[in-house]
């Protein structure tokens, strides 16, 4: 069985693994590197819970082969901010109660982070489009959009 050495930078920390070509980035994040904030949902690119920021772009980790991420930067919800120093988006998610069961939240945050990086003053419509690939089955979209909108309204300090 052929293996490949890959190196990535996950949330600023260098990571390496021996993988087979068929391992997805999602497999390697969770199974090799214990990056459990990246959730495993549909595994076919429908639900968006595995959304990570790969070289600045929101992608589905379940549809990305781990070998394709070699040499790239990966940012997850934990890389956006920490409990001690939360990102404004994370603060606003808490303030607006934009979390019910929490399973979609890491993906929502990574999608929202990329949006605000590219479009800091995104409006509601743009926010809705940016999270169009992220499903929330608790029907909590309104609060999520509210939270992202509140973060968009304020310049990041």
């Amino acid at each position: 069985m052929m293996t490949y050495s890959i190196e990535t930078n996950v949330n600023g920390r260098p990571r390496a693994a021996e993988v087979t070509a068929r391992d997805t980035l999602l497999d390697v994040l969770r199974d090799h590197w214990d990056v459990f904030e990246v959730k495993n949902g549909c595994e076919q690119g429908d639900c968006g819970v595995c959304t990570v920021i790969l070289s600045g772009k929101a992608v589905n980790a379940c549809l990305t082969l781990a070998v394709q991420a070699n040499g790239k930067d990966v940012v997850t919800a934990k890389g956006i901010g920490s409990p001690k120093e939360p990102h404004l988006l994370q603060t606003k998610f808490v303030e607006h109660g934009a979390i019910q069961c929490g399973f979609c939240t890491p993906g929502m945050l990574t999608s929202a982070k990329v949006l605000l990086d590219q479009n800091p003053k995104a409006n509601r419509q743009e926010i809705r489009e940016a999270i169009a690939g992220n499903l929330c089955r608790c029907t909590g979209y309104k609060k999520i959009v509210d939270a992202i909108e509140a973060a968009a309204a304020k310049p990041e300090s």
Partner: protein
Amino acid sequence: MEMNTRIISHEFEYFAPNSIQETLILLDQHGSEAKIIAGGTDLVSQMKMGKHTPAYIIDIKRIKELQYIAGDMVLKIGAGNNLRGVMNFFLPASVPYAGLYESIRSIGKTQVLNMATIGGNLCNGSPKADTAPPLLTYDARIKLVSLKGERILALKDFHSGPNRTIMEANELMTEIQLDKLPKGTSSAFEKKARVGADISKITCAVTVVRDGDVCRSCRIALGAAAPVPMRAFQAESMLTGKIMNDALTEETSQQVAQEINPPTVGRTHPEYRRHLAAVMFKDGFRRAWQQAGGGK
């Protein structure tokens, strides 16, 4: 119905060439047992369903030579452009190509638009490929390259059956070419899916060249309406050079419904697809017609 097994159950070798030339050499050696991966949004999920079990995967995502959009009289779009890049290039302001913009936008999911490429959307061969109908109405051409040379052919001759194309195992699609559209041209794209951002149930693209009340020409293409993305040539011919009125649009829509060749198996009844085809043609035509007339 294929099941998502959630794992890719077979082993394969992975190559990440840095140039078109390297890719062609790999395709020459392994083509018949290889699959090209670009965005992977179709291929990876299909491998998880066991639909494809290639021995080799050739990743062209890193090849910068395939990522350009340039040209004036002939617009050349590198096959490796991701869909978001193509969509942003054709913002609605560029009226003639609004249908292509709308088709990509209809895919909706940010992550998929970031990953998936325009070449992949076509090479996957799906009769449902969202970008195929608008490109067909622009008379798009595609460039296929192999170590033996290159060939340029009309997109309408590319798909050969459900999930099949005429591309040889040693070939790589490198470019999509669009001729500059004449003044007074506009286009629109209509899609019906089970829910938004879902795989299409049926799609329709319409491109019109308008001169006052006269339709100089109209090109109509449909996706998920036949074994391959198709043009409705007979319906088109009903409009060439005609002064437009509602009765003619209605009559043409009935011809569109007749001309499609909907699958008889699957979730959607053929008669329903025919009904949708007629309605979507009328909606698409109306929008393209108005845009071409400066909103009138």
